[in-house]
């Protein structure tokens, strides 16, 4: 009988090759290729920046204290809120929890359900995505981030911290444009005429720091190819997809209408929960312009969702167009401010925030 105390007779074969030399050559070739690629992408204008993934978000969520100032919302809050300026103006450095392309309601709800939280929430309110129903990608993005925050394993945390170190030094670690998948997506392959392909997300046009502050890069600020790619990418992204063919249109629209209706009530309830504990919530409509403004204003006129959310929740709101000092900013790609303008905008926003937050 084979025994656990006898020697095992199975031995895997090993190809007979000069392995040491091969490994040395592989290491050298890979290192040379990586350095060459790094030099190439830096010449194209890429710099080392952090990937705005759920782990980085979860890090920031983990720093929220009961009396923190928290920024939530979409990418406009990420680009247009300068944390240093807010810290100077409000006396406390805010925690940046806005997420690109996300509906922030689940995050507002998460803060509302956190019994210890009685701080301040500055929320970008972009009605088209604030009202996104639960199955929609903007809603799911926030849900995924929260899930990561709640259930990160030790292994995921350590991978994240090692990854941060690498991202802080290597420019080609850019998940917008330079992953294998993103590079393949640039192949000139035409889709079928009837293909239901979701519009692509914007290319790389901002750098992020560890506080999750987004800075628009110069190439996107000035007219040119990159700026065109970004701005002409917004209208398809801001156009709701057609109802699915396999669900009766009336039933689908009724379902969406019901979900939107529920969101108004849920938002008001979340705001009231935070306020009942002594916390504050203020909604901000950040600048946007060009054809994107026409599109958004038509789909969600100010008198619609914006006014209703403020009314039902009782929270104060700052609409950039109401104040001449906030209204004059131009978004180079129609949706976000350039880095210098974002600092200036925040300076001018602070007094309005203070006033709104002083309101009982």
């Amino acid at each position, binding site marked *: *009988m*084979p*025994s*656990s*105390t*006898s*020697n*095992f007779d*199975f*031995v*895997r*074969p*090993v*190809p*007979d*090759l000069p*392995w*040491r*030399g*091969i*490994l040395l*050559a*592989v290491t050298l*070739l*890979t290192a040379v*290729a*990586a350095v060459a*690629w790094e030099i190439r992408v830096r010449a194209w204008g890429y710099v080392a920046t952090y990937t705005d993934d759920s782990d980085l978000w979860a890090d920031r969520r983990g720093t929220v204290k009961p009396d923190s100032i928290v920024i939530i919302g979409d990418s406009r809050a990420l680009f247009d809120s300068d944390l240093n300026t807010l810290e100077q103006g409000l006396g406390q450095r805010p925690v940046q929890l806005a997420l690109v392309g996300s509906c922030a309601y689940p995050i507002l709800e998460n803060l509302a359900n956190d019994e210890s939280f009685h701080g301040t929430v500055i929320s970008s309110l972009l009605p088209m995505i604030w009202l996104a129903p639960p199955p929609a990608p903007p809603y799911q993005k926030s849900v995924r981030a929260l899930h990561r925050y709640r259930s990160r*394993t*030790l*292994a*995921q945390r*350590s*991978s994240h911290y*090692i*990854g941060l170190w*690498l991202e802080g030094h290597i420019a*080609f*670690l850019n*998940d917008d444009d*330079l*992953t*294998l*998948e993103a*590079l*393949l*997506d640039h*192949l000139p*392959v*035409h*889709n*079928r005429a*009837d*293909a*239901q*392909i979701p519009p692509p997300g914007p290319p790389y046009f901002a750098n992020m720091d560890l506080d999750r502050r987004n800075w628009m890069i110069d190439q996107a600020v000035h007219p040119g190819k990159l700026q065109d790619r970004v701005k002409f990418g917004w209208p398809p992204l801001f156009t709701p997809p057609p109802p*699915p*063919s*396999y*669900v009766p249109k009336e039933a689908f629209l009724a379902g969406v209408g019901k979900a939107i209706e529920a969101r108004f009530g849920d938002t008001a309830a979340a705001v009231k929960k935070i306020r009942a504990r002594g916390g504050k919530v203020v909604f901000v409509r950040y600048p946007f312009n060009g054809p994107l403004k026409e599109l958004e204003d038509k789909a969600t006129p100010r008198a619609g969702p914006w006014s209703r959310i403020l009314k039902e929740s009782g929270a104060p709101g700052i609409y950039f167009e109401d104040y001449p000092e906030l209204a004059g900013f131009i978004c180079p790609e129609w949706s976000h401010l350039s880095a210098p303008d974002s600092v200036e905008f925040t300076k001018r926003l602070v007094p309005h925030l203070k006033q709104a937050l002083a309101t009982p």
Partner: protein
Amino acid sequence: MLFNSLTFVVFFALVLSAYWTMRSWTARKNLLLVASYIFYGAWNPPFALLLFATSALDFYLGARIAAAGSPRARRAWMITSVTVNLSSLGFFKYGNFLLTNFEWTLSKYGVAYHAPQFDVFLPIGISFYTFHSLSYTLDVYRKVCEPTKSLRDFTLAVSFFPQLVAGPIVRAADFLPQLVTAPGLKRGQFYWGLLLMTLGMFEKIVLADTMLADTADTVFGYGGPLQALDAWAGVLAFSGQIFFDFAGYSTCAIGAALCLGFHLKDNFRFPYAAVGFSDFWRRWHISLSTFLRDFLYIPLGGNRSGPVRAAINLMIVMFIGGLWHGAAWTFAVWGLIHGVLLVIERLVKAVTKDAAWTEAFMTRLLVGLFTYAAVCFAWVFFRAADFSTAARIVSAMAGRIPSGVGAALLPTLSLWKVGVVIGGLLLAHRALRDTSIEAVVTRMPRWLVTALWTLMLGAIILTQGNGHAFIYFQF
């Protein structure tokens, strides 16, 4: 901890360095044991206790089986081990599934009963380590191996980190003997292990996750009728994704073990080149199919009681094999489809009686293609979240679209990716069907080995890793 994570890269480098620096074999084994529990505990530390409890119990029961004075007592101890192991697996993996089915059955008799849903975390890799551990008591009972006297060795055999959470299912009888004396490294073994790890990572990160996963997810996640092209692309993509994902994990495990001086057997042998379904199961997840053969099919009677009983035994084994993969009837149906195909194959073989034409090239080619197509058909049930999704996809694959208009969901680039990767996969499996990766690499010029290794490494780096979990972790 995932193989395809930066944490693992650092962890493995540290373990390797410490392991080969130590002189004492006992110290090395202690290191591996601690490293294996860190590897597992980095996911959810409390479940490391469950892993230890499972191992310690089977260590004790193995000793009791060996020491039992009568066949009846041996059998009682073995049944205890099987019952405890399967109960633990059943509680964590099948608890809610059983309750839901219990509810459904009662409702058929007019009893409205709503069982409470248990919010139970599924310990990662529980199906694998339960089988690692159970194989020991079963082999001791069968007198295939003697019990070990070292609890440390046994817990290491069950928890050895390369194969801990997603296989191969390494039997204690195959692993314990390797713990007796310090393993030496054959010439090139360490480097060959590293190359296998690179190949496994390439399969997982580049081919499964980057080239195929989105296509499969899009098609299987769509709620409406699809065009036939999209349905086929989704199913073919999944056939490749699951192979590269799981075979990639096994290849990494074999490579990591080799770097540490251990030898694990193959878990896959180019399965998509299989000619017939019994051939497929000799090539796909070999460690599971041999486990089920030795510990279920043969004890049920195997082929010994006539063809009808053998067919029933096959169906039972494949049904249970299906459910082993997940607590859902779709997995059971996947297993049953394979069971039916195996039974039909036996019938056909009984009729054709190895006639010369069955060995002709064209016959084998057609049977091979049919095998792959049928395996893909079965994958639909494996991957679909429910039967309505499976039915929708099968209908679309057959060109039957209820509304007359199916959605074209996939970008043309995705269709190309599927075509190129799956075409390459099938050609590679066909070319390598009767050989091994070691034999092929031995014949390769060294510049080609260098170029391929560099390309795989470069593609992994370029992909930037997205940390997708391996599909088989959930089983």
